[in-house]
């Protein structure tokens, strides 16, 4: 049986060690670094596929668990495991990393070995974070991944990269240290750092609210929510293509994952009290940030703001559960909201990755991200235009694409809670359509904008491959989301049943 293997450790350490190997072997030989890096990324992807197919559906238990004492003095264990929430995110991580390494071919000119190595190490750390079941282990991975990302933005980034990367680092660091305090507090209460023990730790209301806010500081910055989102447009704009892709496709999901793994199950009573705060901020993100996206003149910035708006949907889906219960008295619609948020996260992983790749394709050719520098790209790059339009449609949530599924589920859940809330949430469909289609109109359609555009070459085989893979998943998830939902359902039902129980200590 595969389940007896330390398959999660393999997933974590294979890319990390492979990354250092790439660094050592490919420092002065870009071709070697790329080939080796691709081999490592592909191997990791294959292992994660193995995990996906042997993953047992229909149970909320942690699977593939590994448990070894790590720091005896603090009762910390090297404890790994996956459930229906982390499983899809791990697969998303491994797939995206493969694409990022392929995209580096030809597009990254300087210090290729370091570039590939940074992404491989980051991949291992992210998988570690998604599978950690010990809070200290989680925190170590959570923070450690800042280091490679810090370097990626700072070394290969745009003109204002230093500002952007330090802002990125400090924002995330600021959020997460409060989480650390909360974790220490719970350790002192429960005597262990096991996340699953935290789930069953009774906490009085005041403590719950403070812990909730501490987690909120960490995850709201990461996801990011209004008003702590300002690092994201800066980081996205300055990051190299691969950095933007990983940021959008996976790092933002860490915030969402954190809400499901920590905030909801550990402090359900506080979440039930403070859900209005989160829902309000989510709606502000959906509406206000949507409007902000409309006026951007930089393509990457536009997509960055669009990401924030879409992630607002995710948090809305997660926290609407409490409002549904308050307004209707039962938890039946709650699962749909959470599942919708999860689907939205995965779908956004593909779509935003695709959009950033698309911008990267244009940037590699004209070295500009300004919308005004383009126009009529369809005339010279028909294949590219076709893909771009597809991803743009997915971004607006067109039925048949993955973007539709998650948004539809969240809006449906929102309807159970409150009509006007659902109405406001649904404006995203209009706003997203407005900013995305306007972007398409200005960049893709119309007359050829200038001589540079006239000289553009269409996608090469490598770019076609990346776009094709992403398009495949966007459509697959759009027409047949069942495999994804199957993996998550049991875990989400279990989560809803868990948060329906009050954790206040009995008087």
């Amino acid at each position, binding site marked *: 049986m595969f389940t007896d293997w330390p398959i999660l450790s393999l997933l974590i350490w294979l890319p990390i060690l492979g990354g250092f190997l790439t660094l050592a072997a490919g420092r002065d030989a870009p071709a070697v670094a790329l080939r080796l890096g691709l081999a490592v990324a592909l191997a990791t992807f294959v292992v994660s596929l193995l995990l996906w197919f042997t993953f047992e559906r229909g149970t909320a238990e942690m699977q593939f668990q590994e448990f070894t004492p790590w720091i005896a*003095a*603090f009762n910390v264990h090297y404890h790994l495991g996956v459930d229906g929430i982390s499983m899809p995110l791990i697969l998303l991580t491994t797939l995206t990393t493969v694409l990022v390494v392929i995209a580096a071919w030809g597009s990254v000119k300087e210090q290729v070995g370091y570039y590939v190595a940074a992404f491989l190490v980051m991949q291992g750390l992210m998988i570690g974070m998604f599978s950690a079941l010990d809070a200290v282990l989680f925190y*170590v991975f959570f*923070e*450690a991944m800042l280091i490679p990302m810090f370097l990626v933005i700072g*070394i290969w980034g745009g003109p204002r990269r230093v500002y952007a990367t330090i802002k990125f680092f400090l924002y995330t*660091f600021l959020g997460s240290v409060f989480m650390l*305090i909360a974790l220490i*507090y719970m350790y*002192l209460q429960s005597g262990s750092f096991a996340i699953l023990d935290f789930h069953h730790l009774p906490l009085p209301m005041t403590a719950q609210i403070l812990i909730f806010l501490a987690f909120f500081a960490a995850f709201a910055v990461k996801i990011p929510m209004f008003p702590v989102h300002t690092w994201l447009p800066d980081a996205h704009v300055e990051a190299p293509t691969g950095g933007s892709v990983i940021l959008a496709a996976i790092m933002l999901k860490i915030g969402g994952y954190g809400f499901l793994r920590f905030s909801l199950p550990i402090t359900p009573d506080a979440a039930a009290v403070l859900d209005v705060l989160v829902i309000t901020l989510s709606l502000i993100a959906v509406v206000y940030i949507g409007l902000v996206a409309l006026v951007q003149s930089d393509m990457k910035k536009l997509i960055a703001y669009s990401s924030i708006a879409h992630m607002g949907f995710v948090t809305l889906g997660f926290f609407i559960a409490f409002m549904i219960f308050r307004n209707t008295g039962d938890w039946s619609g709650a699962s749909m909201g959470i599942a919708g948020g999860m689907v939205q996260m995965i779908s956004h992983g593909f779509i935003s990755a695709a959009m950033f790749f698309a911008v990267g394709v244009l940037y590699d050719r004209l070295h500009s991200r300004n919308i005004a520098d383009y126009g009529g790209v369809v005339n010279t790059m028909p294949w590219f235009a076709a893909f771009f339009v597809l991803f743009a449609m997915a971004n607006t949530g067109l039925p048949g694409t993955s973007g539709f599924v998650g948004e539809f589920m969240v809006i449906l859940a929102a309807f159970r809670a409150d009509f006007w809330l659902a109405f406001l949430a649904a404006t995203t469909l209009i706003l997203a359509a407005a900013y995305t289609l306007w972007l398409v109109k200005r960049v893709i359609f119309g007359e050829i904008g200038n001589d540079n555009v006239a000289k553009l070459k269409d996608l090469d085989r490598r770019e076609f491959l990346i776009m094709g893979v992403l398009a495949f998943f966007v459509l697959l998830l759009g027409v047949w989301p069942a495999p994804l939902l199957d993996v998550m359902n049991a875990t989400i039902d279990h989560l809803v049943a868990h948060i329906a129980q009050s954790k206040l200590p009995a008087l």
Partner: protein
Amino acid sequence: MNFEIPAFLPAVPEMFVLGMACLILVLDAFLPDSRRDITYGLVQATLLGAAGLTFWLAGPETQITFHGTFVADPMSDVLKLATYVVTFFVFLYSRPYLMERDIYKGEFYVLGLFGVLGMMIMISAHNFLTLYLGLELLALVSYALVAFWRDSPRASEAAMKYFVLGALASGLLLYGLSMIYGMTGSLDIATVAAALTAAEEGMNVPLVFGLVFVVVAVAFKLGAVPFHMWVPDVYDGAPTAVTLFIATAPKIAGFALLMRLLVEGLGPLHGDWQGMLVVLAVLSLTVGNVIAIAQTSLKRMLAYSTIAHVGFLFMGILAGTDTGYASAMFYIIVYALTAAGGFGMIILLSGRGFEADQLEDFKGLARRNPWFAFLMLLLLFSMAGVPPTVGFFAKLAVIQAAIGAGYVWLGVYAVIFSIIGAFYYLRVVKLMFFDEPVVERAPADRGGVFATAISINGLAVLALGIFPGLLLTLTHYAISG
């Protein structure tokens, strides 16, 4: 009257170091300048020998000898071993620096060895006078070392400041100790503790009066705010090799000073000194981290960062629990190791007539030498407390101890200031990795030994971060037996 012959065995490492130091001192006088490596080699061998002896004599039991003035317990064993290791690195890093400035003299190493002896006596003191003796031995060595480079006016100025303020601190300590002696009638640490436990309420005022002076003196020696003024000037003015020496191992001895004085001797007054340490910790965290941002000299920046680290050290001590003391001990050992690496890196980049102690000198290091830049990156992230480096676990440990003692707000305060601290460490990373080199020179070739040592030092910070369990268990063993 019987004269009882004390047990010499627990003090064998000290006697060995003293004997060797005297021997090397004499031997060195007869060596020509070209044979100075013999002195160096003997000094390093002494450290290794002392480490072997300490390790051999180490045991879980507490042995008190020399009529109650000297103690050998698990804590002294662990702290001494840490001191040897750190000093070994310090002496190794110093060698090329001294050679390039034509001050590769035996005195540096012999004085350093006497400094180590002073630290060992502080660590093993079981009487206030022994403690003071060790402290003064270390202090006199430090003053002399700072002034060691006679051709440097800045070093002489630094030595003067250091001497005057250090002497003042020693005076304060003696004054405070005399008050406590007056109230308890003893200088023996165990007797004082017993007398204080038995003391009645009314005795408190003069005792606390003495305690204030003791705490102030300790804060002076460790460089806690508001008694920190000498730290940046001395660190910056002293030759880097000396800064390296005084910024590392003596902090471990400083921890021992805190433990022997406040915890073991004045432990019953915990309620009184806890508040003082809280104030010192808060001020140190604030001033250290904020002022470090404004520095352009790396040595000054590290000086302020040391001040902030002392704040973290106090957080562990003030918790007043065994976990807290063990955490503080873990913190200070990690700090000493990281600081040794950091200053070692400055020496690595320096050259003849070139100090490499400005932030600018680190610009573009990743282009010039990626491996050393990577090591420095690890050291800086460790100082900032970012996992997976060991600095994170050090901060985790002390913050956890403080929160466990009910100081949640102090924990929050500390993490907020560690973010401010992260900024200036990140700035150095930025200079190394994101900026173009200003100085075109590649780091001078320091030879394989130096490169290996600093690689071990840097990677240790990572390895201890991935496997912090061993050192943590060791510190818990040292405190709780």
